[in-house]
């Protein structure tokens, strides 16, 4: 069974806050859900599927479903793969809809790491009974140095430079200048990036995403529901998911799970990377983008540095406009998880509702991709291909 054309994204909402010290995480989930319902033209009682991940407080989805008053649920899923969970949720919602298990599925994300003072520079405590933790935690793995080791190996293998990585941030900043909600709206140069302080070699401060409070929500619905609503139609054409770890000690940092999740999504959609008009690419760090561009097939392995140089990711300038909201690098990375905002901006592009300065002309096919967890240790990958119907 394929999910191709079996489900539509009918609601998409990015919470406008970037700092919310006076709101609970549950409240931001609910406000995001309310926004997505309003965007779709649906109401709370219409929801019969609910999906959330580890940012949601409580046991799986139980506490949030109760808090928001979701009493008609027929299908639930709290798949947790870090920042890419929400792309997997879209795929799982589409599968459930295709199988007749629900008709209108809500996906939410929210968090306030900025108010709580948490970032990718601190160790995370996921529990002592995790089998890898005793053999890794003593050495100080945090988010940034995990991704930094991927960047260091890429530079060693392929001659990629800090200046090439910097172009990814430069492109994001060109887009963020048009987004009134973006945390960082100043256009930056390659020199600004490589002259910013080193955080963990070879990554500089401006190679890293923002830390923001915020949230987002999506509504995935059956084609009959989608066609009854007044919004432009965005359908799910293909999806893929994968995980990759340390391979029993055969660590290979030169490729990511995107190689498999991307291939699966393109196969289901029946298209190739050359058909994609716009791409939302997970950008926790500049290196995250570079790896995914290569592994998704937008360029050959090792040629990502060349591909991103000279502005190829800038809308209206380059071959592959990406993250036209400013992405995690400049706009928003709510809950330290950038997956849902990737889908939201892809939906805006397909609807023709992106900012006019960054709207891609005739945007009929878009890709959204997420990487969750730690790229240099163990991570999830999720790819969605969406189409304007």
């Amino acid at each position: 069974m394929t999910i191709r054309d079996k489900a539509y994204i009918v609601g998409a909402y990015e919470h406008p806050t970037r700092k919310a010290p006076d709101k609970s995480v549950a409240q931001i989930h609910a406000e995001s859900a309310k926004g997505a319902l309003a965007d779709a033209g649906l109401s709370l009682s219409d929801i019969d599927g609910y999906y959330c991940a580890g940012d949601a407080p409580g046991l799986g989805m139980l506490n949030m479903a109760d808090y928001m008053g979701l009493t008609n649920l027929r299908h639930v899923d709290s798949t947790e793969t870090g920042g890419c969970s929400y792309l997997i949720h879209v795929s799982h919602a589409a599968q459930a809809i295709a199988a007749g298990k629900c008709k209108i599925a809500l996906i939410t994300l929210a968090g306030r790491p900025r108010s709580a003072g948490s970032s990718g520079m601190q160790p995370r405590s996921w529990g002592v009974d995790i089998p890898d933790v005793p053999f890794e935690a003593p050495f100080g793995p945090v988010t940034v140095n995990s991704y930094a080791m991927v960047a260091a190996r890429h530079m060693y293998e392929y001659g990629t430079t800090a200046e090439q990585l910097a172009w990814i941030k430069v492109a994001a900043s060109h887009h963020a200048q048009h987004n009134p909600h973006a945390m960082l709206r100043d256009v930056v140069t390659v020199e600004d990036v490589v002259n910013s302080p080193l955080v963990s070699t070879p990554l500089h401060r401006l190679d890293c995403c923002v830390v923001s409070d915020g949230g987002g929500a999506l509504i995935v619905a059956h084609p009959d529901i989608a066609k009854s609503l007044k919004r432009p139609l965005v359908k799910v054409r293909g999806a893929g998911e994968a995980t990759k770890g340390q391979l029993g000690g055969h660590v290979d940092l030169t490729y990511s799970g995107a190689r498999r999740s991307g291939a699966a999504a393109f196969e289901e959609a029946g298209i190739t990377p050359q058909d994609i008009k716009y791409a939302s690419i997970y950008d926790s760090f500049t290196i995250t983008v570079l790896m995914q561009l290569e592994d998704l097939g937008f360029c050959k392995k090792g040629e990502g540095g060349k591909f991103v140089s000279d502005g190829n990711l800038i809308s209206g300038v380059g071959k592959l406009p990406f993250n036209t909201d400013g992405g995690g690098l400049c706009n928003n990375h709510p809950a330290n998880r950038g997956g849902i905002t990737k889908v939201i901006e892809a939906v805006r592009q397909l609807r023709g509702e992106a900012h006019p300065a960054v709207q891609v002309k005739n945007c009929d096919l878009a890709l959204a991709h997420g990487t969750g967890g730690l790229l240099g240790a163990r991570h999830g990958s999720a790819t969605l291909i969406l189409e304007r119907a």
Partner: protein
Amino acid sequence: MTMMYQPNPLPAPAKEPGNEPFWDAARTGKFLVKFCTSCKKPHWYPRALCPFCFGETEWKEGSGKGVIYSLSVMQRGNPNPYCIAYVTLEEGVTMMTQIVDCDLAALKIGQKVKLVFKPTEGDGPPVPTFTPV
């Protein structure tokens, strides 16, 4: 510019069922690697069942010699900079570790390194780090 290694406190590894022999051996200066009794392959980090074939596994003493596969020097947010790394052991498996007792700014991928145990907080067992040969 040099950046001589200065130690940060290392958190003690958690003893969990199945990993005690590794930490007990570390206290005597021995570095153990798990091998499969069925397919004979080594793996890292140590597991009860082989991640390649689900065979039973046994501990063997490792050479403690390796090559840096990748590294990153964390420069902010701690008392001292530290170098996290993946080291590929002579046995063929790659492990997460730190590179110590050297100029961190001079380290290179591909460099040969050897094992050195470092103490952990609260009288925890020592952990395997590496230093250039």
